[in-house]
């Protein structure tokens, strides 16, 4: 048989690696800054562009899509060529993918601090960037399938299945969650409202974690862990089961509990069973990874790469056990809205994604530069400082999450809240936040050890831009193996394989998505709930721009501890005009669903100017720019039109005199402020924000007053 000579493209891998490490440092630095801002609120130096609400999404987007994203691409471009025994399909497409992705990151890094955001978590980028993501993502998919189709190896290795599932599912998630109506170039409204928007967003959010942070990394684990251990994977059978069970269950088991919890008992139990079932494939994968090291455990002691990988796989096991536990209602009642969630995601992010990335980088760089790692000792130090960093990060966060939650729920023997002032519970956990940022600092410092070590390694060797290889061409009839033909048939056909993966994923998707679309007609409208006035609508967009949703929820849960603190629990009908929903996922500050009319206008004015004037010790940043920036009312007609398109019942032609109403309402608020000794001006941002805050929950309060 004639052997063909060809070469692997290492250049593209190198580019993605450099981008990944660079953005890891940037993303972690931003993370460190926001962690410190939580106890030094003036760390934004009075600059709006680096205030917590604006740069918290910058941190999450940078570490997820810039750091982890670039590592995924580097790892896939390295391993896919080698298991397919061919060069990437098209070098130009590889370059287009690389530069396109970096351009998206640049656009995110500029737009998020400017307050250009949709406010939907991990999908904050506005519609022009959403379109760029779609194009670049498809170019990656085309390149991957092109490579798989022209491969020389007949069979498709399990790692590649995970890559295919990643591509297929992320495409579906991104498209469904990003359907929005543009209002100008930098602003759009989600087509979904309220409860429906929440369901779509968390279907996306949960599965973005599953198919961006998990499945591609499992693919990388199945390639790089056997390489680093020089052992075949423990069980190929288990990897097949792992794959199909995981992609089937993941897409809907996680949020399943959210959907069906008030169904009859048997259905509830079934929902819980499904969530718990996800532990099985997750742990199957973890054990498959760890057992790959059978007989090589002695090498873990002196091989830093294996150390990183063992901690990564262990962290994966811990996070995937914790996830289903958090989906139990009784646990969720305590964990939701607290630092517990932050601890959970960082065990996954720092442990699983970070540590596996470092292991892969330490393995790939010497190979690609044809040399040995510059310093094992330094890599070992990096391992220890990162591991300690994770401990110092996660433990205080668990502690503070549980402590704060219990304080929120604590009643005195007389039956009143023991800590009625929310701030008291915030101040209690500040020491934990200080320790957490120390843990983050340790992890961050480790990055510089990695950079130094890898740069020295590269200097010692010579970069192999095109790595020579040879393999026999793929002949259709050379398969002499007879049994187990169905799966072999399937995996020789990547396109059909991708379609089947899509079907499997969609079964789960449909189970959740169909009720999501049916629910719109099942939400009773509450007569007292009216669309936002033009000024309130503008105020709401300022609330979105400033990222208030990062720290304030708008969802009172039906617990006595919450109705006592905030008022009547939230009803689905209250959110029917909320494009997008602003429920939030974290209560760093109190819930705002019922804050309307609770305080006078002047309180909000002074509180936004400097929160510590009204609440001594508050950790909320100051927003002095809201007092001086002029509200842009030129967008009002377009916003009213867009909302009407989405079904919000504004009267015909209302857009033509909406700004008159806006001015009228602004003047009323300003007059009230002036009467209270505040030299306010009616055309400033703060007036619109106050109007919005005073509206929150007010409809229901009016309703109750009428009933009484």
């Amino acid at each position, binding site marked *: 048989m004639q052997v063909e000579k060809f070469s692997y493209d290492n250049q593209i891998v190198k580019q993605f690696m450099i981008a990944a490490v660079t953005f890891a440092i940037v993303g972690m630095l931003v993370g460190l800054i926001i962690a410190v801002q939580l106890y030094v609120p003036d760390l934004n130096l009075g600059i709006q562009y680096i205030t917590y609400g604006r740069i918290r999404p910058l941190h999450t987007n940078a570490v997820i899509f810039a750091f982890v994203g670039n590592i995924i691409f580097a790892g896939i471009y390295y391993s896919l060529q080698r298991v397919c025994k061919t060069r990437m399909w098209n070098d130009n497409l590889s370059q287009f993918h690389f530069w396109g992705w970096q351009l998206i990151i640049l656009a995110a890094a500029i737009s998020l601090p400017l307050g250009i955001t949709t406010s939907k978590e991990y999908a904050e980028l506005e519609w022009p960037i959403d379109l760029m993501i779609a194009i670049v993502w498809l170019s990656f998919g085309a390149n991957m399938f092109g490579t798989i189709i022209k491969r020389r190896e007949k069979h498709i290795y399990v790692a590649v299945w995970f890559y295919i599932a990643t591509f297929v599912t992320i495409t579906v998630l991104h498209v469904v969650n990003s359907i929005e109506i543009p209002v100008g170039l930098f602003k759009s409204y989600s087509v979904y409202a309220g409860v429906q928007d929440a369901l779509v967003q968390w279907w996306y959010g949960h599965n973005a974690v599953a198919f961006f942070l998990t499945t591609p990394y499992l693919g990388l684990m199945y390639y790089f862990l056997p390489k680093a251990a020089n052992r075949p994977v423990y069980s190929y059978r288990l990897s097949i089961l792992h794959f199909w069970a995981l992609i*089937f269950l993941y897409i809907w088991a996680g949020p399943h509990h*959210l959907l069906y919890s008030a169904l009859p008992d048997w259905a509830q139990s079934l929902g819980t069973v499904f969530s718990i079932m996800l532990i099985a494939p997750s742990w199957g994968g973890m054990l498959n990874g760890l057992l790959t090291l059978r007989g090589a455990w002695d090498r873990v002691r002196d091989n830093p790469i294996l150390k990183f990988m063992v901690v990564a796989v262990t962290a994966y096991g811990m996070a995937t056990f914790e996830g289903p536990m958090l989906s139990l209602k009784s646990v969720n009642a305590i964990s939701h809205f607290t630092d517990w969630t932050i601890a959970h995601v960082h065990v996954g992010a720092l442990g699983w994604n970070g540590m596996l990335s470092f292991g892969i980088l330490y393995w790939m760089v010497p190979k690609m530069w044809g040399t040995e790692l510059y310093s094992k000792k330094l890599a070992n130090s990096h391992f220890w400082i990162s591991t300690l960093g994770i401990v110092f990060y996660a433990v205080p966060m668990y502690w503070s999450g549980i402590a704060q939650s219990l304080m929120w729920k604590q009643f005195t023997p007389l039956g009143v809240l023991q800590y009625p002032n929310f701030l008291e519970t915030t101040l209690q956990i500040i020491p934990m936040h200080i320790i957490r940022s120390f843990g983050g600092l340790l992890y961050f410092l480790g990055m510089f050890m990695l950079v130094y070590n890898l740069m020295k390694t590269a200097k010692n060797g010579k970069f192999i831009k095109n790595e020579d290889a040879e*393999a026999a061409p793929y002949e259709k009839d050379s398969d002499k193996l007879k049994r*187990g033909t169905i*799966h072999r048939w399937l995996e020789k056909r990547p396109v059909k394989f991708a379609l089947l993966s899509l079907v499997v994923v969609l079964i789960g998707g449909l189970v959740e998505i169909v*009720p999501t679309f049916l629910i719109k007609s099942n939400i009773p409208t509450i007569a007292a709930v009216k669309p936002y006035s033009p000024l309130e609508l503008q105020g709401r967009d300022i609330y979105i721009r400033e990222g208030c949703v990062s720290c304030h929820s708008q969802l009172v849960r039906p617990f006595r501890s919450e109705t006592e603190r905030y008022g009547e629990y939230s009803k*689905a009908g209250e959110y029917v005009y909320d494009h997008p929903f602003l429920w939030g996922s974290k209560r760093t500050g109190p819930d705002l669903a019922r804050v309307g009319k609770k305080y006078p206008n002047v309180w909000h004015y002074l509180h936004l100017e400097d929160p510590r004037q009204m609440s001594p010790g508050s950790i909320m940043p100051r927003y002095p720019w809201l007092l001086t920036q002029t509200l842009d009312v030129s967008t009002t007609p377009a916003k009213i039109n867009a909302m009407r398109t989405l079904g919000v019942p504004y009267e015909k032609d209302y857009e033509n005199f909406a700004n008159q109403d806006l001015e009228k309402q602004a003047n009323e608020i300003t007059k009230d402020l002036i009467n209270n000794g505040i030299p306010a001006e009616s055309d400033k941002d703060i007036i619109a924000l106050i109007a919005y805050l005073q509206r929150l929950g007010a409809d229901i309060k009016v309703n109750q007053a009428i009933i009484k």
Partner: protein
Amino acid sequence: MLSEHISRIEGIAVYPIISLIVFSILFAAAIVWVFRLDKKYLARMENLPLDTNFDNNPEGIKFQNNSEIKNEIEK
């Protein structure tokens, strides 16, 4: 709050049942499937990422199975 409205959707209870049945069938099929796989094929796939030259060694197998790894360890 959510579940209250979801439970009003007609025939909603059938969703989890369909899911469970579909999943059970798929899972059972997958188990049968993997245990019917050819051992040589499995060994070849397991060795795919490792640097083995399949062309000189048609089976392309560096480690035949787990017992061989065990033997290697004992050596």
